């Protein structure tokens, strides 16, 4: 098809503003799905993701649309909706020539609306603003249109008003895609360059790569080369999702579809990489590729009834369809053998942990997630440290640098005071205030990532009666007065409980931490001292008193089964735990480290 008749676009929206429903509406209008199918959200797949109501994996759907007697091919490229998947969003956008910015007519502009709009702006992507859910009684489309005007400088009257629920405005939206968004540029006769913007794993076909052909073309049988990883493969299958997969023989510049090339592991394919021809290579890859950025690391250890090898097999299977998860074997004196895992964010971590337990029956005991640090040692070397336990000895430490994010906090203007207080408590540096409207503002801060990964979002929500939203992005690593806080359980230092904290917060953090530990670790047959220390200086201590009585009376009439069941009950719910020396440390105690103690 002629490039003029192709449109590649994305729908970007804050979560729950109606992206999926609008997408389904378009599919319905273009005849790609039936009325009945309309009611299923086609673009989300995994069970877990649906439960959590988020779209993690991007994918693309090709629709046929006719306007004024002309046939168009519309490729809708889905973007992940959660902050953890920032980089994936940027790659999805890179595959588009324009986007629909969907904003809930009742909620108005929110943090991810802003983040995504900025991202689109950075890649010079034209946006058509869509004000959705106008059927809601609480809808205030004109106000929201003004907010959008503030945000992307599109005149409010150019907004398209829709209701994905009733279908109102969907035709206007489709027309705007054709009329207002540009067709793909790119050189159909040039050397082949195709952008990988997503990939999934399919049991039968192996890795399925989603590509946008920018220059040249791809055809079945082509020998291709990944410009980033330098791996080569042969294409054995090409196609598009309509949303059912439909095979094609070739795809030329401007088109979007999938490539199957006998690739077994998802980890071999990098989102953002460029595909070219093995024999006729392009000179330069498409811009913007970088490997996934891990925001948090956590050590996963097998629980009492799980074997290390089973855990390894399960992780191996998980990375087949989650390329952003990394893991490497580690061993700790206290906890034995396990895996250091890298995640895009906390939600990603929770999903992986749940999938290990649910899909692979693996009992995970995990250490509290930590952000990655950079460490400068006295010999001038800079290394990345993903666990407080890996910090070099204080004598060799020149400085510890922590990741700093630029965060946009959007909140009602009447909660500016509380939000600012919250930010300051988390060592944030104020950057800017920008009014979206008379009663909504964007506060921009630079905040250490470590201060916001755990409960910051919840705190923001409660400080703003639920209206606050945020988005953030790592901008740099910055040296700070950071110290390692050690925890001693029964006089043994437990590295897995160590944490890197700012010196000014070490005391309350240490105190809070061991108070939580005291609650989470159950009483043993002996007394357990708990201490928090910086170096050799103990800053807080607590004691878990010894268990003095735990014995049952005789079993009357020999009812042994009943007695056994009573004893088994004592252990219930304590499966996820690790022995450290003679002390049982339950999963919850490891997580106590996260509590900022404020």
């Amino acid at each position, binding site marked *: 098809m002629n490039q003029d008749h192709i449109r590649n676009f994305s729908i970007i929206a804050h979560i729950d503003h109606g992206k999926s429903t609008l997408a389904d509406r378009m599919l319905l209008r273009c005849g790609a799905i039936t009325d009945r199918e309309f009611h299923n959200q086609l673009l989300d797949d995994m069970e877990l993701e649906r439960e959590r109501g988020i779209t993690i994996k991007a994918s693309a759907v090709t629709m046929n649309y006719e306007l004024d007697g002309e046939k168009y091919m519309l490729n809708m490229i889905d973007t992940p909706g959660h902050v953890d998947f920032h980089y994936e969003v940027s790659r999805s956008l890179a595959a588009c020539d324009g986007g629909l910015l969907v904003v809930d007519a009742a909620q108005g502009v929110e943090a991810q609306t802003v983040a995504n709009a900025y991202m689109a702006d950075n890649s010079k992507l034209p946006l058509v603003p869509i004000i959705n859910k106008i059927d809601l009684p609480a809808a205030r489309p004109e106000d929201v249109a003004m907010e959008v005007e503030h945000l992307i400088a599109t005149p409010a009257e150019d907004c398209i008003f829709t209701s994905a629920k009733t279908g109102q405005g969907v035709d206007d939206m489709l027309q705007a895609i054709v009329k207002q968004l540009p067709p793909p540029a790119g050189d159909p006769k040039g050397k082949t360059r195709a952008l990988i913007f997503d990939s999934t794993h399919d049991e039968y076909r192996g890795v399925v790569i989603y590509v946008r052909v920018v220059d040249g073309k791809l055809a079945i049988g082509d020998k291709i080369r990944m410009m980033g990883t330098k791996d080569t493969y042969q294409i054995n299958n090409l196609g598009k999702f309509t949303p059912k997969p439909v095979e094609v023989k070739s795809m030329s510049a401007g088109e979007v579809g999938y490539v199957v090339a006998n690739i077994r592991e998802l980890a071999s394919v990098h989102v953002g990489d460029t595909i070219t021809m093995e024999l006729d290579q392009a000179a330069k890859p498409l811009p913007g590729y970088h490997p996934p950025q891990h925001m948090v690391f956590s050590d996963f250890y097998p629980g*009492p009834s799980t074997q290390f090898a089973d855990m390894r097999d399960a992780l191996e299977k998980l990375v087949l369809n989650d390329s952003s998860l990394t893991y490497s074997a580690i061993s700790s004196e206290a906890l034995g053998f396990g895996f250091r895992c890298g995640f895009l964010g906390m939600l990603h971590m929770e999903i992986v942990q749940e999938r290990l337990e649910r899909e692979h029956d693996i009992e995970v005991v995990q250490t509290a997630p930590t952000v990655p640090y950079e460490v400068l040692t006295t010999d001038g070397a800079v290394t990345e440290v993903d666990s407080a336990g890996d910090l070099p000895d204080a004598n060799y430490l020149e400085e510890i640098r922590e990741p700093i994010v630029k965060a946009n906090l959007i909140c009602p203007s009447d909660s500016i005071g509380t939000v600012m207080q919250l930010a300051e408590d988390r060592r944030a540096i104020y950057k800017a205030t920008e009014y979206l409207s008379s009663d909504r503002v964007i506060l921009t801060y630079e905040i250490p990532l470590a201060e916001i990964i755990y409960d910051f979002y919840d705190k923001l929500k409660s400080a703003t009666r639920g209206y606050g939203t945020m988005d953030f992005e790592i901008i740099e690593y910055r040296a700070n007065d950071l110290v390692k806080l050690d925890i001693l359980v029964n006089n043994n230092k437990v590295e897995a409980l160590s944490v890197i904290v700012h010196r000014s917060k070490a005391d309350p953090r240490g105190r809070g931490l061991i108070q939580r530990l005291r609650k989470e670790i159950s009483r*043993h*047959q*002996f007394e357990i001292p708990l201490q928090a220390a910086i170096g050799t200086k103990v800053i807080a201590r607590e004691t878990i008193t010894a*268990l*003095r*009585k*735990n*014995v*049952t*009376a*005789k*079993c*009357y*009439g*020999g*009812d*042994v*089964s*009943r*007695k*056994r069941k009573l*004893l*088994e009950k*004592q*252990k219930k719910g304590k499966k996820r735990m690790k*022995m450290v020396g*003679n002390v049982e440390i339950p999963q919850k105690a490891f997580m106590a480290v996260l509590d900022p103690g404020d």
Partner: protein
Amino acid sequence: MLEHFCKQNHSQVSRSVGALYVHVPFCVRKCRYCDFYSQTDGQAAKQRYVAAAIGELKLKGDVLAAPAASIFVGGGTPTSLEPDLLDELLAQLHRYADGETEFTVEANPGTIDTATADVLVRNGVNRVSLGVQSFDAKLLDVLGRIHTPQQTHEALRILRGAGVGNISLDLIYGIPGQSLEMWSRDLDEALAADTEHLSAYALSFEENTPLWDDLEADRVSPVNDELQRAMYYHLIETTASRGLEQYEISNFARAGRRCKHNITYWLNKGYLGVGPAAASYIGGRRSVNAPDLQDYLERIEAGTPPQAECEQLVGRSEMGETLMLQLRLTEGVKIASFTKRFAVSPTEAFPRSIGRYLQSGALVETKTHIRLSREHFFTADTVLADILAEV
């Protein structure tokens, strides 16, 4: 559980079991702390019960060794049956006993008179386990026992007079309002009775009992763990100094007077249970009869098996239960016997839990045995729960 699963192939297990337990589900009045199944009225029910129990025994008796090594009639309060009915029941049981059989009946001091004592002795009963609980009238009130301290002394006199040569006293400590001194006095009074055997248990609060409600409503305050512990170790030391040897966490006996019947449980050997709520362990299969008397009677009278639940123990579950039970004995688990029974030693079978507690000192390994250390008797369940968790 399906009923056919509860049916036992009797030919395989005939005469294999040395111990018989008979549960008598009647009491004069419910004690305030008690959650065992027992009923407080109904002469008609008692008659039906005795007939049913005898019927069940006839049905299953061929698994019993003849003569049985031990017979234990418990409850409930067996001596709350009228002498005639008690006589009828015991006479049937007597047929499985000979002079060597340890034949125990549990008795409440408030139910012992000369007529009852005669019935016991006439039917070969040679051991009485007397539910004394305390010699303090106030504490007996807290417990809601039917008897007075005087009745206990009277009962002892009657039993001895009737010729019962082997008497065990049951005591309870950790009763709300009880101090260490009070416990010490109770214990002294029990020891002064010069019985052959003593069992002492810490009071436990069970749901659905009046005492539990008192606790919930703050009408009584529990004795704290530290004091209970002090009471326990006082018990161990005092009994030892008075020639009663501790052989199980809560049991003490003069030489040769350990309770054979209970040792069967602790060695995880087989036994037959008869009566509502009675448990059996035959050929590796555990079963428990329907706990409700009415339900039990109807089943027996209709000729259907009275078992409500059963499970077949195999492999590690059987090992786990064996350890759970044997470790309650002061001598602990005999390594050679365990290894012979399961073809693997306890430490090989449960390296994580047993290893952990050998290291901490809660368990002690000698050349022949693995046992709990004395300091850990009072937290034994912590160790046992971990062993079971490794099954």
